[in-house]
């Protein structure tokens, strides 16, 4: 035990003398939490609309003003032909073009039926899908308005109608920041913990001090623990800092049991730091460690269910997600911070991560060789 005390003393001295690390720990959380949620707004709004109105009728104008009034669309201009509108889309000036054929109003009234043409720039699938859906529902409403205008209510043949009442739980205003902030906090913790621990042992290898350690009677698990504990404490500092920042700036505070949140973070840090230390024991230079870590971080973060739902992934990707500590963290963060869950809901996650932590750290201890 006394050995660990000396190891910790040394690690902390070194950490606090390294300005790059301190900068990373103190500035990155604040910067990321302040800027990223502003940048990462995936709400589909401000869809740029180009209109080709061949009809110029009161109805066509009424329809256009209804679309622009919805708040989702920004009218970028009227084009004379669809060809011109396509060019507009090509230049990324419009996401969506609406063509109202000539005789729109007349045909609608006389022939009871009229078509409209909508072209969507579908390179961004989500935006196209939701944009199309919004426009369709505005058209439905418009259609209903017209019917009301022409047919007195009593004469309208009553039809069985199902009313869908949507309800958005946990985030009724569909505030995108509620979604992003816990996720960014998760990424932050993973990045800081993962990179710091991955670069640490390998740095001692590069400068040669590890030789001096290896020739001492130090126990392998003491050495690894001496590396683990300081970063574990730093991880907690970063997380607390992040929590405070998101509370002050975004008013997001865990709805659920905060002890459960910390309990989970403690176990999570064990797993992530264990992974970093493992990478550190396998690599020879800091550059290598960084690239290896970057590779895994990218996979962990992209496949952690932060940007897209894990449910939609194919089978093999679900397996990767099941082996990905970040996916558990993202889920637990959302559960506790947004949904107000407590210990009982996160127990399975906790168990799995504990297993990760034990395996990864055990592996790192095993792979750390004092003798070559």
């Amino acid at each position, binding site marked *: 035990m006394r050995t660990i*005390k000396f190891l910790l003393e040394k690690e902390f001295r070194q950490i606090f003398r390294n300005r790059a690390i301190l900068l990373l720990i103190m500035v990155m959380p604040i910067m990321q939490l302040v800027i990223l949620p502003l940048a990462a707004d995936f709400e589909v709004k401000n869809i740029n609309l180009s209109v080709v109105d061949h009809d110029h009728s009161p109805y066509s104008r009424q329809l256009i003003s209804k679309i622009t009034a919805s708040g989702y669309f920004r009218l970028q201009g009227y084009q004379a032909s669809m060809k011109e509108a396509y060019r507009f889309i090509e230049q990324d000036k419009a996401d969506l073009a609406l063509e109202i054929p000539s005789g729109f109003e007349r045909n609608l009234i006389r022939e009871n039926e009229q078509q409209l043409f909508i072209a969507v720039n579908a390179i961004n699938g989500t935006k196209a899908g939701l944009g199309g859906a919004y426009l369709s529902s505005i058209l439905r409403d418009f259609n209903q308005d017209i019917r009301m205008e022409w047919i007195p209510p009593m004469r309208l043949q009553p039809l069985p109608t199902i009313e869908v009442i949507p309800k958005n739980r946990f985030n009724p205003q569909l505030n995108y920041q509620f979604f992003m902030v816990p996720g960014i906090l998760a990424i932050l913790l993973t990045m800081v913990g993962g990179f710091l621990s991955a670069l640490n042992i390998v740095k001692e290898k590069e400068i040669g001090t590890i*030789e001096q350690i290896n*020739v001492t009677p130090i126990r392998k698990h003491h050495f690894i623990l001496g590396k683990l504990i300081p970063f574990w404490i730093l991880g907690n500092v970063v997380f607390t800092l992040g929590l405070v920042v998101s509370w002050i700036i975004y008013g997001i505070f865990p709805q659920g049991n905060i002890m459960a949140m910390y309990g989970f973070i403690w176990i999570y840090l064990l797993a992530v730091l264990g992974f970093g230390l493992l990478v550190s024991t396998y690599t020879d230079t800091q550059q290598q460690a960084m690239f290896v870590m970057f590779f895994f971080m990218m996979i962990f973060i992209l496949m952690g269910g932060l940007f897209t739902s894990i449910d939609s992934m194919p089978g093999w990707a679900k397996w990767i997600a099941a082996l990905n500590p970040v996916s558990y963290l993202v889920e637990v963060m959302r559960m506790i911070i947004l949904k107000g869950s407590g210990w009982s809901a996160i127990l399975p996650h906790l168990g799995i991560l504990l297993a990760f932590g034990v395996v990864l750290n055990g592996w790192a201890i095993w792979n750390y060789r004092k*003798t070559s």
Partner: protein
Amino acid sequence: MSMNEPVIKAENLTKRFGDFTAVDAISFEVYKGEIFGFLGANGAGKTTAMRMLCGLSTPSSGTARIAGFDVYRQTEQIKRNIGYMSQKFSLYEDLTVLENIRFFGGIYGLSNQQLKLKSDALIERLGLQPEAKKMVGELPLGWKQKLAFSVSILHEPTIVFLDEPTGGVDPVTRRQFWALIYEAASNGITVFVTTHYMDEAEYCNRISIMVDGRIAALGTPKELKIQLNESSMDGVFYQLARGAKNKD
């Protein structure tokens, strides 16, 4: 101090890396309190042999006992009984002199009281009082080396292994360094040292000269000079090493 008490006993110790045999069945003994010089050209296998003796590298074959412990099975007991100073300076440059002493002493299990006494004594002996709270990285090379040596014998090991401890150091500091080595030896610490300086070889009780992974000669400097009919150690070394196949 009895000369028949070997603290290092190597028999046919061998290390192979793939096809290349870095250390080829060397056998020798080092006795308690001796200053044993381990000479050889670059690439002759000195560092590899030393790393095996320290328990940093597992031998391919042969046996060796260090302070009575086996290099295969008892590496951790060996480490408790030795000190090591590598070729590359390996104290922490971002810790102060005192912090380095405290850290390495602590790892070897010195008590707080011992730590205090020993670090005070060490700093006084080296005359480092004004620098005690400076980062090690800021010290000149000679001081760093003296400090590294003192730290490596802080826990009073049976044997201390020094890998080219005076490389790149000025002649005055080298002499001071050897004074430290003699002091350690007089306290009963066996010193196992590699060097390229032939004048330093003369300071040793006994020396061995490695060529191509084998020990080509072993004895006191005087014996070797007589044996090879040379007037200086330079001549001895040159005669043995020039036929080597493995050079940088």
